[in-house]
């Protein structure tokens, strides 16, 4: 057990856990944000994606000690009012079906837009190919990312948090 401090969604948190515990379970079971999902536990499906210091990271295979003293953003912290360009675009395109994978998809898309404000289809394939959606929302995800990129550009924002 170890005392580990990290900032999650703007709030400083100190947790007393096994430092090897994956960040995913610290976020979900210890701190209590459940928007970040467990899908595979092996970094294969992307459902657990969060940002650590702005970088899209698979929290299910990231020991919490790796996030010590860093800034973690989960889907709950992406925007204060559900008005991130990607969230708006996701709603506009009515992307989700069951929705379980979408937190992870949106977090990866946000990291993509922060780096490449106007991504090509190939950029989207490269970044989003790490995610699985069993409902098959892929074409709407692609459209929503393009839409968010257009909106963010029009708003003069980069689309990051």
């Amino acid at each position, binding site marked *: 057990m170890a005392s580990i401090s990290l900032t999650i969604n703007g709030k400083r948190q100190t947790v007393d856990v096994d430092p090897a515990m994956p960040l995913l379970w610290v976020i*979900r079971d210890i701190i209590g944000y459940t928007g970040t999902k467990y899908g595979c536990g092996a970094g294969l499906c992307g459902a657990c994606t969060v940002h650590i210091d702005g970088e899209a990271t698979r929290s299910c295979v990231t020991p919490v000690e790796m996030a010590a003293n860093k800034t973690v953003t989960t889907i709950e912290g992406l925007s204060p009012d559900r008005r991130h360009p990607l969230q708006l675009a996701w709603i506009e395109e009515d992307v989700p079906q069951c929705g379980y994978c979408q937190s992870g998809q949106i977090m990866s898309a946000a990291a993509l837009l922060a780096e490449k404000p106007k991504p090509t289809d190939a950029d989207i394939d490269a970044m989003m*190919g790490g*995610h699985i959606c069993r409902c098959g929302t892929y074409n709407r995800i692609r459209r929503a990312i393009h839409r968010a990129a257009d909106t963010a550009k029009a708003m003069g924002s980069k689309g990051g948090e």
Partner: protein
Amino acid sequence: MNTTTLNRRDFMKVVSMAGTGFVLGFYLPTKEQELLALEPMEAFAPNAFLSIDATGTVTITVAKSEMGQGVRTALPMIVADELDADWSKVKIDQAPAHPTKYGSQSTGGSASVRRSWDMLRKAGATARDMLVTAAAQQWNAEKSACSTENGMVIHKPSGKKLSYGELAAAAAKLPVPENPPLKDPKDFKIIGKPMNQVDTPSRVDGSAVYGIDVKVPGMVYASIEHSPVFGGKVASFDASKAKKIAGVKDVIQIDEGVAVIATNTWSAFKGREALSIKWDEGPNANQSQANIWKTLEEAAKKPGTEELKVGDAATALNSAAKKVEAVYYAPFVAHATMEPMNCTAHVRGNECEIWAPTQTPQQAQNQAARVLGIPVENVKVNVTMLGGGFGRRLQADYVVEAVKVAKAVGAPVKLVWTREDDMQHDFYRPATYNVMTAGLDNDGWPVAWTHRIAGTKEKGLVTGGSTPPYAIPNVLIDSHIIDVGVPIGAWRSVGPSQNAFMVESFIDELAAAAKKDPFEYRRRLLENKPRLKRVLELAAEKAGWGKPLQAGRGRGIACCESFGSNIAEVAEVSVANDGSLTIHRVVVAVDCGPVVNPKTIEAQIEGAIVYGLSAAIKDEITIEKGRVAQGNFNDYQIMRINEMPKVEVHIVPSTESQGGIGEPGLPPIAPAVCNAIFAATGKRIRKLPIRAEDLKKS
């Protein structure tokens, strides 16, 4: 509370509520036997309650489970349209399980909308008519001078208006009209319009609550080590190491295995890894995939149970000008919902509360009651959001486990399966071995068709959808259903999901043998199936059938009627020299009868195509030493965004009988792709999944 039950065909019931509003419950009579007899049917199947409060908020209770198929949007749309409700004032409530109040709450068989359509329309229309009557009485006006719009009754001559909220209390005191006028479909304002899912906002900010997200005060976490071999039992176990893992509180044995109880999910997982268990592996310990195929192949050498006999196929085959024979295989496949199985349960004395992502709340309730030996009414089942269902959550196995653990622990318990648990303890689509023969006449038209299916039990899941839709005078379908010790269950689109692959590939083989165009060949044989013929023609037209393609590409077509809907799909593919397959485009034409939400139809068809494509090009569960050989998304791969074809969905305007939409998009995709591969390469795929090594240029 004043309840009036009316002796009417549809048992409409009105309950007036404390004078502030009214509740209208509607009960559906049992409809036609489900196509594939998937659902345990009950005598009455009410789908929702409608209530309007004094503020004008319309609350519609949905008793079916939301797993991404849009049922929490579609069912309320039907009610709200006939009611002329203000959609922005509609609130959705999720019904808990109840033995009788809602009828069957089982959500499957692409049945929710079509089973509810007539009744939900009438329920909305009934409420609307009563609100109009209440307004007319207040105004001393003729009902015929009143109209409704957006949650208001309007008196046209005077321009007076009253909101539904203002009228609710008065309407609750009125008698229920026998036959309220239904809208002319041309006046629908909500039905048929593209509507966003009501749950979309909560799915983009992390606030939607799935089973795995449930939090109950005092809750502990559990993970179960199951027998690696199907049917195995715990012989003995040593938990001393597991109990030393930080966070582990206890280790207990249940019938299904050994459960580790911990203060968080990860500690429960870690505790499991530290368990030492000796298994009595039982009779399936040596089962293998090779043996399963051999068993099925051996069985198929002899005639099986007759499933369909038309004319005399044997005689017709003997006298046919040409005979075509082929053997087709469908593998076991897993559901692999994104949200692994999980359930939270709390047992207090002779009461139990359950929070579950389930397609079958009543089965969960019944089984919990049975396991605990308590009355069904003492079990409350709260239905959460489902992170995918696809038929997996028609099983209540994980609910039973959670209840047993919760009883032993005496505190609320959240049981979470790992991905590996989920992959290795599923109820799989059956593996089937298929011997097909056909006889053609001198002009190449089929005179006989035989299909012998040897598949792993259960029967309906093996043989459903095997009847060819084509006009063939002599048909014989027979089956062998064999228990090979692998659990089998309904998998999205069930029987047709594999049988359309056989039927639609084999008819393509017949067209090739007859040297005829596969679209024209099907078309001519579908004279008696006008709806299927029409979608076939539309898909071909929209896909540009017959028009030249880029070099190296091929088109394939397939069609299927399932769950009351007719669908045809044209796939366009190319195969590289190394055997890698690209699916460029899929064009779909669908006739599912009257449309409720076209956005949902497109999404469900596209989703069914992705689910079916994953199975067609990647997925296979195999058994070695009685165990599932696959465990996670590394060895059970799923199609991803970079492999996604363009999908175009064309909906045929239709006023004919309504079909389902969650599943029908799936059956035609595997054969459409395989037929396109044949068109592009001349290689005929008879075994799924399609492997690059089978497509490599030799």
